[in-house]
């Protein structure tokens, strides 16, 4: 238990340090892009957030398979935590995309394949969370969530293909018109690393919180029994 605690603290410290470094990179280190100016720096949030949205659902998928196979509630706690975080980060991705679209194209929303795919992924996250919420009991919710986790995951690449086919005329690589300078790439890498560590840290904490919630319920059951 003690080792776990110090491990958690270490995780938090690493995440925070990396995050500071990433912020330094984004605010000061990276060069300002010529055509789009400062607002292009949203890019350094935007890309990591997209990555976390996908990573989140990949973990949901993995946890779902493990749950249906092993039937350990730990796996369910893992995948539902990943879904919660993935949902939050996908929401942030949509917001940052919107805040970028405004200065870049003059509109709050554009139906680029990437944004559209993210939007649908966001809806699938909602579907996952809804099913758990409306299940008649907890284990059923876990089972149903796992089913949605698996089906949704295999659907994501098909969604990505369909949106890009649908909007094939759209300039997919608009961001990288001038290409990325080495500094930009480096800044992006740091930012991705920082966000990923943060995500993993949150995931570990959230999963353990859910385990503790189950412990509370178990104890409560013990107390209420035979009274």
């Amino acid at each position: 238990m003690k080792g776990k605690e110090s491990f958690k603290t270490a995780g938090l410290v690493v995440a925070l340090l990396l995050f500071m470094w990433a912020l330094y990179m984004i605010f000061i280190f990276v060069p300002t892009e010529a055509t789009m100016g400062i607002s292009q720096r949203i890019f350094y949030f935007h890309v990591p957030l997209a990555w976390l949205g996908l990573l989140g659902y990949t973990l949901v998928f993995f946890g779902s398979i493990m749950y249906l196979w092993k039937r350990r509630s730990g796996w369910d706690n893992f995948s539902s935590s990943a879904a919660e975080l993935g949902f939050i980060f996908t929401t942030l991705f949509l917001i940052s995309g919107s805040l970028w679209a405004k200065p870049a194209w003059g509109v709050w929303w554009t139906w680029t394949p990437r944004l559209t795919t993210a939007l649908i992924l966001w809806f699938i996250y909602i579907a996952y969370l809804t099913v758990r919420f409306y299940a008649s009991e907890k284990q059923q919710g876990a089972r149903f969530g796992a089913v949605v986790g698996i089906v949704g995951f295999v659907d994501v690449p098909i969604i990505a293909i369909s949106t890009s086919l649908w909007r094939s005329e759209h300039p997919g690589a608009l961001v990288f018109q001038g290409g990325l300078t080495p500094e930009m790439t480096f800044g992006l890498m740091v930012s991705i690393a920082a966000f990923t560590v943060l995500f993993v840290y949150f995931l570990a904490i959230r999963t353990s919180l859910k385990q503790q919630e189950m412990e509370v319920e178990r104890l409560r059951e013990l107390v209420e029994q035979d009274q």
Partner: protein
Amino acid sequence: MSFLSKSLAVARKETIAELRTREMVFAVLVFTILVIVIFNFTAGVDQEVIRAAAPGLLWATFSFSGTLSLNRTFVREKENGCLEGLMSCPASREVIYVGKVLSNLLFMLVIEIIALLVFTLLFNIYVLSPPLLVITVLATFGFATVGTLFSGLSANTKAREMVLPILFLPIVLPVIIAAVRGSEQVLAGKSWAGLSPWFQLILAFDAVLSVVSFLVFPYVIEE
């Protein structure tokens, strides 16, 4: 072979019951035609406008009428505990799934074909062409495979009718996109070759999602 014959027995039973009451096909069909009529008032009589909006309207209608009919498929199993009776039969859970997919596919196709006829009559657009029918069958198969899985799932939740569209629509979105775009091409008089990317997309969806749904269905109805 017993697998297929038992699946057919399930589909057969569904069909007999539906033919007797006609409650689902009838209600959904009325809904579908109403949507088409309302569309008539919003799009006006300009043939160009209608032609441009028709594919989108058609598939929006089919998606919603699909969810409507899918919502019904497990209702019959809930009365008198039939699902338990079904589960006590010496047949795997997948048999139930395949049987239900077949009957859902049949019901949806019947509704869609009639809707296409109505569409042709009311708007003077010839939508009953062979490529459009192929698109309809393939896309509806995608609807039925995913929809049967999710209707089994939502039938066991606390808010049945509400949960299904939230699950179903985002997942089948690739099929809707492909079907709309494909139908546009057909109405624009494009050849079969121009349709191939959309066919491929729907086929990919059908192949992947039907296998996955088949595999996870037992987890939806077990306890």
